[in-house]
């Protein structure tokens, strides 16, 4: 990102563009299908929310993901639609357990270089060291435990299932960080189409007006 931004400036200046290689994140396509995001929401609420908050989201917001009322009721298990997605864990307990408060996840997909790919890479970055302890490739020494048990999974089918779960969780967090993205793209196409026609007309009228000079 950094290289790209400096690169834009450099491009502007008509010289070479510089692209910096991103950190060793997994090269993975994060899905954006409604099913994937829904599955990711379930993982987030049932697993991530054990310790993390998503304080900028309310349970009611999840209805935008296409859940039926029944599914949503199961998901929020008694929580009100206007309640924010917060962990039931006591903050002092969390602080005692981990030494710090687990970060809020509402913006996590925008708060790290690589975004959703970072989240996927972190979740599937856990591995067992020679001494049996667990560490993470992406974030060595991370306080978070291997919640999806990736470091334990040996069976390829089991690993693939966990990878899919991690992809879906990343997809959900991408939505959570930018819930208006779909609306923005849709509006964007109309705006650009409108501007393209307008600019063409402006060009033609400019040409016609300037033709008077010759």
């Amino acid at each position: 990102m950094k290289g790209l931004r400096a690169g834009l400036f450099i491009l502007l200046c008509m010289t070479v563009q510089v692209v910096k290689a991103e950190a060793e994140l997994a090269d993975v396509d994060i899905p954006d299908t409604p099913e994937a995001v829904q599955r990711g929401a379930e993982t987030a609420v049932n697993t991530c929310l054990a310790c993390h908050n998503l304080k900028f989201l309310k349970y009611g917001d999840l209805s935008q993901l296409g859940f039926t009322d029944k599914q949503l009721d199961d998901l929020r298990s008694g929580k009100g639609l206007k309640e924010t997605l917060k962990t039931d864990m006591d903050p002092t307990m969390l602080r005692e357990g981990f030494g710090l408060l687990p970060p809020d996840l509402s913006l996590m997909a925008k708060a790290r270089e690589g975004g959703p790919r970072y989240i996927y890479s972190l979740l599937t970055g856990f591995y067992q060291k020679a001494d049996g302890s667990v560490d993470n490739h992406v974030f060595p020494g991370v306080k978070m435990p291997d919640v999806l048990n990736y470091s334990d999974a040996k069976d390829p089918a089991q690993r693939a299932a966990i990878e899919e779960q991690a992809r879906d969780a990343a997809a959900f967090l991408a939505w959570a960080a930018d819930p208006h993205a779909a609306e923005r793209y849709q509006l964007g196409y109309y705006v650009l189409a409108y501007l393209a026609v307008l600019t063409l007309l402006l060009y033609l009228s400019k040409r016609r007006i300037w033709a008077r000079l010759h």
Partner: protein
Amino acid sequence: MANRVIAWIDQRFPLSAFIKNELTDYPTPRNLSYWWNFGFLAGFMLVLQIVSGVFLAMHYKPDVSLAFDSVQHIMREVNYGWLLRYMHAVGASAFFIVIYIHMARTLYYGSFRAPRELMWWSGQALLLLLMATAFMGYLLPWGQMSYWGAQVITSLFRATPWVGDHLVLWLRGDYVVGDATLNRFFALHYLVPFFIVGMVLIHLVALHHVKSSNPSGINLAAKDNIPFHPYFTAKDFFGLGVFLIVFCGFVFFKPEFFMEPVNNVPANPLQTPAHIEPEWYFLPFYAILRAIPDKLGGVVAMVLSIMIFAAMPYLDRSKLPGGARFRPIYRISFYIFIADVAVLSYVGAHPPGGVLAEVGRVATFLYFAVFLLLPLVSKKEEAWLRARGLPSELEALVAGEDDKAGGRR
């Protein structure tokens, strides 16, 4: 009825005369290229930033415990709040791109030369005001980079001899960047744009007095001027259309392109980010700051690197018109300067040390060398070009200019 209303106004206020003299019939050189569109675009960006900013201010809360969340409130709950905020955030970068191109055009075509020094200097004042506004605005989202950027940049004032510590305290309103800082930056971020509007008016009054420069670099005869309307209104609006397509491309499809991911983490005074860097439009000057090993020296070099533009009318000693067009050496030094700024931006975006530190020092030296050698270079170049014989096109332009000067005498 309408005519009578206008006649009534015209008796009391020069409305029709103003529109006629300054807009519809305002004489403009017919040979202006599309590089002359960027002044209009800068004016458009100023209006867009003020309008979107006023609406953002209706929902934003300048309080350290609320600021970050209120931005998320704008992004999520406010109707089209995401559009307002992305227009404003992308708009800041777009504003600088437009202004830098506008400046590059002025440098290339020598538009800063007599009699346009006051335009150039009011432009310099506008650049400083714009930088101050952008810097203060960047604190408002209260993310990690907002906080640490403000912390680092305000601490630069500590280098001021004798009063440094007091000055920093006075700027921040506290010993560290905090609630007092955020509140005053918000107030000033709202205020300074109106100073910019005032300075733009001065810029425009000066422009309409000396009239636009043009690619040939000399004042054209009356027959080469055409009325601003409809010719340049049509051209400016077409340019605006092209600009808006690119601008909206970023707003709708890559709105966070110019943003730093770490700024989506709320400000935390206890945790310094791995790498603090300013917004891209400050990178060349930031690289110059870091290139000088001495703190005070670095700050002085950075201030000089921005202020040295003001000296251009005196540094350029050549009497040949046409900016870089007819001046091969000046043209080369222009491109060296642009490339050097690009290198400095790259250096500024990366952690200091190693080869880049050396590159930064050489680029800083080159930056000032281009300016400081210009008096010598421009004189030698003129002598060389005259000895070699001016191109016939230029000879005609110079002769035309001499005739007019002779006629006036």
